[in-house]
């Protein structure tokens, strides 16, 4: 921990952090291939609504 980091109770100590499993999934190839496809669809949907 750097010197600027708070000690004791501080909001920054309790910010939601990913679990090890979540971090694992972020680079787990089969899962990310599926997410890649889903992300593309979701982006086209969000961007497409405005274009309508």
């Amino acid at each position, binding site marked *: 921990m750097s010197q600027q980091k708070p000690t004791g109770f501080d909001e920054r100590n309790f910010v939601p*952090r990913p679990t090890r499993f*979540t971090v694992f999934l972020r680079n787990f190839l089969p899962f*990310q291939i599926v*997410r890649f496809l889903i992300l593309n669809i979701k982006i086209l949907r969000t961007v497409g*609504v405005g274009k309508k």
Partner: protein
Amino acid sequence: MKRVLILGAGVSGHTAASYIKKWAGRKAEVIVMTPNSKWNWIPSNIWVGVDMMTTDDVTFDLAPVYEKAGITFVQALAQEVFPEGSADHEKPFVRGMRTGDPTGEMVEVEYDYLINATGPKLNFGATEGLGNGSELGSHTVSVCTAAHAEHAAKELKTQIEKAKQMNAADEKLRVLIGTGNATCTCQGAAWEYINNVDFVLREAGVRDRFDLTWISNEQVLGDFGMGTVALKSSGHYVSSKTFAESLFVEKDINWITQAGVNKIEEGVAHYETLAGEFGQEKFDFAMLIPPFSGVPLKAYDKSGADISDDIFAKNGFMKVDADYTQKSYEEWSSDDWPKTYQSPKYDNMWAIGIAFAPPHFISKPMHSPNGTLIAPAPPRTGQPSGTMAHAVAKTVVDRIKGRKSPAHEAPMSRMGAACVASTGKSLLKGSAATICVYPVVPDFKEYPQTGRDENLTFGEIGLAGHWLKHLLHYLFIYKAKMKAFWSFIPD
């Protein structure tokens, strides 16, 4: 044949030029006036800044591309607009100074339709020590242009080499990244850069020898100039504050928000906070984004009288069909934002991308007790720029073809935008935060709680985002080069 003059060849100017030429064909003579000889895919500059791409990877020469497409390329810096013509010119025209060969020569180009897509002036001079005018100073680095990013990569490499020679007991090297002024925009680029610096330091095995600190004018981390966004993420609607803080805590990056950097000295950034306190942050390496202003264009009427104040806002951006009435934050409405980007004074002039004057901020403007405005300016780069250019190109082509249809609209208050923010470049170990928002400008009438559609606004971090960002790099450069079927690639 009608002549369309486009000032600037960034995302918005280049998009408008290519679509107008494609749709209007021989009915339009399209001329692009820009001081730069190269097109730059700016979103990838952050990778140049960490030595994972080269300048050649993110730029290409405009002249051959325009020649092939039948677009006239004038390499010049636009300086004066005459929307009514002058004593010597029947038609409206723009006067500029050539920056290519022969440099310094003045050039005048008449037009029927004018699209101002000049982008921003990088206003380093707004902060003492950050630079002089639009020139970057010597204390910090920038990733705003490919050349700046290349310089940043060299400086970062020096720090990494220094870290490798350090002993465990040595004081850590300090990296400071963020915004270099109280009213900066473009936090996203700096946010990507700090995450990529973290990534390359880890890859080099020296991350434990660095303290990374984020400094910005955002009220909270993750504001990004959009007034914070509620993102659908991992089964929850979470604020972009939580989303960004989570990533920084995970990566052990410190942050200072609500800070307006007001002075840079060798190794020290001075800032004022919203609480009215003054602080300073030491650094060995700093990348601070400058504030943007409009490029210094002047406008004159037929008699030669200066009408710049009628055409441009005080910050140099061009006034369009927005509601510029001074209102309090509570009175702001998404309807204040422009729809057609047409000048209210001249119906053959438009401004798109960074060049148009926004009616107000998106984030709530805050002042310190000392009266200093500390708030992020609204973002309007990247994909929104392309969408605006597309709509204006359609309007111009309708006019050229004599169609009486109303102007096409692309208001940011009814525009969805995708931002894929890199957090590390590697085919298998990389990641990016994919953030989609609808609409860009919150509409609290339609979406009372957060101002945005909760089903269309989402965020996700992972390798898939990196693949997407990398794919977009190649797709958009392919599209910008106007190769086969380029127009099938969405903006």
